[in-house]
């Protein structure tokens, strides 16, 4: 494969990203390169070590259907073409125990003392292409995947018919190692279910089954193939043709998802009960093998990258793009792009399209060679700074330094500041000004909002990335909510200074809502933890002052949660209705 040989590509296989810091155009990356115990560059893939290795283990790349040694190569065309030792399986380099592979290795590339290595480098852009995983069929065990050997998943079907398997691409029935005379596929296992598995359509399973039936019919025209489905989704170019070809070859498609599977104890055949929804009749069918067409799920390991790059997820767990239709490749973090199934389940063609798109989007930045940082960063007013250091503590990016001993004013590195404004909200001396989101500007907006009939209004602060975007999505989806909501957009809920909230109450606001991202979604790492801390302290202060704390609400609403946004708005409106004019006047007096 070309990636292993390309002079411009540094391939770090068997490696994990452990840390990413920085910002658009300037990321610093730390990668852990796991020990292979084999020198990749010296290995000639001669296979002598594998031949002599005495340890036989199930091969993960064949889902355990075949075996490998303790020293192995995942598959013949692997890139890099080098062996690795699984140290948990290896007997160890003790002459009494083993060490045989090192003895036979001619280029002397086996090194039992190899350690994990850390590699660090700088990049201008990052593309996340962490892929997807296959759904676990045990969650729907009415098909007895765990009990009946002749029930396999579509993923196992791939391995069993793949070139690497010992049967040489021939599908054999697990119980008797014979070619099955009949086979059935059940669609949507783990997909399109609100109760178990996942509510979404996994996109690729229908076509995968069509492909599997064609493969079987090409090799064994006499084999009986039946597909049980809810809806066949064959929407891509050339897909419908393939579906028609499958039907023309005699594959039977029955609309209805089986409810029950029973194994014949003698023949090990599987008897399926299904309601054929086209005829409305309950039917029984017998097959020698059953394939569960399993859906796909987001990959768990993506979460680490998601956090490191402050990306968001949609409710299905896949990574969120900037805009559904118009910006489906950029992530909300500048300089970070999404490619392939980490964004949503998709077929190979769509993955390749998105990958090329991501490369083009990245090149657009790289070829310009420079990027402008929005002028919304924080500025220190040196004369007012008391060098207390709270701003440095609050900054999620470590972009502020304060020498408390020397009592010199705080210093901001503007290129590293992302403009969340948490420092500005935390500073008690008014020594920090957030460009373009200044205290005076926000206070003026509050004044304008509450100048007339303040008692009727819901004063809301919404963060740009999640809550404001969630409110936008409610609009895009034409959802309705009370018309008395008035929003002030800040980049982060961390910007919402105590004084904004007191000011709103002083001006007669019946309720104030502060809304930000969920903790894992915060676009400023964890700035919204400061929001929470601040609001909790405000609730205490309100209590002590004799102002009902319910009048200050805190909610986390993501960019995808339009429904939640409307619910929150309705709930806050219910609270607003309980606030009387008299109560508002009393609050004003208290805060005078």
């Amino acid at each position, binding site marked *: 494969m070309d990636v292993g040989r390309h002079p411009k590509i540094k*391939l770090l296989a068997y490696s994990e990203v452990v840390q*990413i810091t920085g910002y658009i155009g300037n990321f610093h990356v730390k990668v852990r390169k796991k020990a292979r115990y084999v020198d990749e560059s010296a290995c000639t893939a001669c296979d002598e070590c594998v031949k002599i290795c005495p340890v036989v283990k199930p091969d993960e790349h064949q889902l355990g259907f075949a075996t490998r040694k303790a020293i192995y190569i995942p598959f013949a065309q692997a890139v890099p073409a080098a062996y690795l030792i699984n140290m948990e399986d290896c007997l160890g380099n003790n002459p009494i125990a083993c060490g045989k592979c090192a003895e036979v290795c001619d280029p002397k590339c086996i090194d039992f003392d190899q350690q994990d290595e850390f590699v660090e480098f700088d990049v201008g852009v*990052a593309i*996340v292409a962490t892929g997807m995983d296959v759904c676990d069929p045990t969650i729907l065990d009415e098909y007895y995947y765990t009990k009946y050997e002749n029930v396999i998943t579509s993923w196992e079907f791939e391995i069993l018919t793949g070139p690497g398997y010992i049967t040489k691409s021939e599908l054999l029935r697990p119980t008797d190692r014979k070619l099955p005379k009949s086979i059935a596929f059940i669609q949507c296992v783990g997909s399109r279910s609100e109760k178990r598995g996942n509510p979404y359509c996994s996109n690729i399973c229908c076509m995968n089954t069509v492909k599997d039936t064609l493969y079987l019919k090409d090799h064994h025209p006499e084999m009986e193939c039946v597909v049980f489905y809810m809806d066949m989704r064959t929407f891509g170019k050339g897909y419908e043709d393939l579906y028609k070809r499958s039907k023309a070859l005699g594959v039977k498609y029955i609309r209805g998802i089986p409810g029950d599977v029973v194994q014949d104890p003698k023949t090990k055949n599987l008897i399926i009960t299904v309601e054929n929804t086209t005829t409305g009749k309950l039917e029984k069918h017998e097959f020698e093998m059953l394939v569960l067409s399993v859906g796909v799920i987001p990959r768990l390991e993506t979460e680490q990258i998601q956090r490191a790059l402050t990306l968001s997820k949609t409710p299905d767990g896949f990574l969120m793009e900037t805009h559904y239709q118009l910006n489906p490749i950029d992530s909300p973090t500048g300089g970070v792009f999404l490619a392939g199934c980490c964004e949503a389940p998709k077929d190979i063609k769509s993955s390749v399209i998105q*990958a*090329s798109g991501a490369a083009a989007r990245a090149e657009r930045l790289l070829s310009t060679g420079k990027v402008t940082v929005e002028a919304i960063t924080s500025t220190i007013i040196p004369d007012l700074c008391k060098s207390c250091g709270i701003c440095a503590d609050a900054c999620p990016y470590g972009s502020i330094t304060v020498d408390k001993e020397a009592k010199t004013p705080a210093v901001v590195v503007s290129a590293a500041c992302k403009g969340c404004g948490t420092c500005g909200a935390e500073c008690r001396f008014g020594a920090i000004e957030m460009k373009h989101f200044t205290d005076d500007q926000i206070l003026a*907006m509050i004044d*304008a909002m509450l100048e007339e009939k303040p008692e009727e209004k819901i004063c809301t602060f919404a963060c740009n990335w999640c809550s404001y975007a969630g409110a936008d999505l409610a609009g895009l989806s034409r959802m309705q909510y009370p018309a008395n909501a008035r929003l002030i957009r800040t980049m982060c809920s961390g910007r919402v200074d105590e004084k904004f909230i007191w000011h709103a109450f002083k001006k007669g606001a019946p309720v104030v809502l502060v809304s930000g991202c969920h903790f894992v979604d915060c676009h400023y790492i964890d700035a919204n933890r400061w929001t929470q801390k601040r609001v909790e302290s405000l609730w205490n202060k309100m209590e002590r002052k004799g102002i009902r704390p319910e009048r200050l609400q805190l909610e986390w609403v993501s960019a995808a949660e339009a429904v939640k946004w409307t619910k929150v708005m309705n709930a806050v409106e219910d609270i607003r209705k309980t606030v009387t004019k008299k109560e508002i006047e009393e609050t004003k007096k208290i805060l005078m």
Partner: protein
Amino acid sequence: MLEQSGNPDPSGAEELKIGVFICECGINIAGTVDCDELTEWAKTLPDVAFAIKNRYTCAEPGQQEIKRFIKEENLNRVVVASCTPRMHEPTFRRCCADAGLNPYLFEMANIREQCSWVHSDRKQATQKAKDIVKMAVAKARLLEPQQELEVPVTQSALVVGGGIAGIQTSLDLADAGYPVYLVEKEPTVGGLMSYINKTFPTMD
């Protein structure tokens, strides 16, 4: 691009002249919000020197109108009441910059996603749109010109994941001449596709 100067220094005693451009967005906004009433009302706000409504402010004629009136009316602050700033703030900032106005002297009022699209009652929606415009004007009065910081872009890319998508991205970027670090957690690249025998729709 954003470094044009030539605009008035607001810290000076220069008189504020705010222009308000109300977008009908076809019927997206005008269908629910009374844009004529809103425009007339905007003219009464403090420091608003000029207000007009357009059919589509983001379209070329709409943008030309902003540029023309910035010059003709000597506007030194611009408020556009239309869709979400998450969509067209960059568009209008560029438009102001083209007319010689510092792009940070522009403010947006979201009367579509957060008003006309979520409220069906014309009276209530118009009332809310007025408040949204009033709040934007209040902020616009205090806007100051800003200079954007320019930072260099390191000429290399990180690709996380060596499946078909990661491989394709890496090859495209590398072929274009940029160094790529491709990080794969498994001992080999190839991802899930390396398991697959035949692929649809070509069956190869």
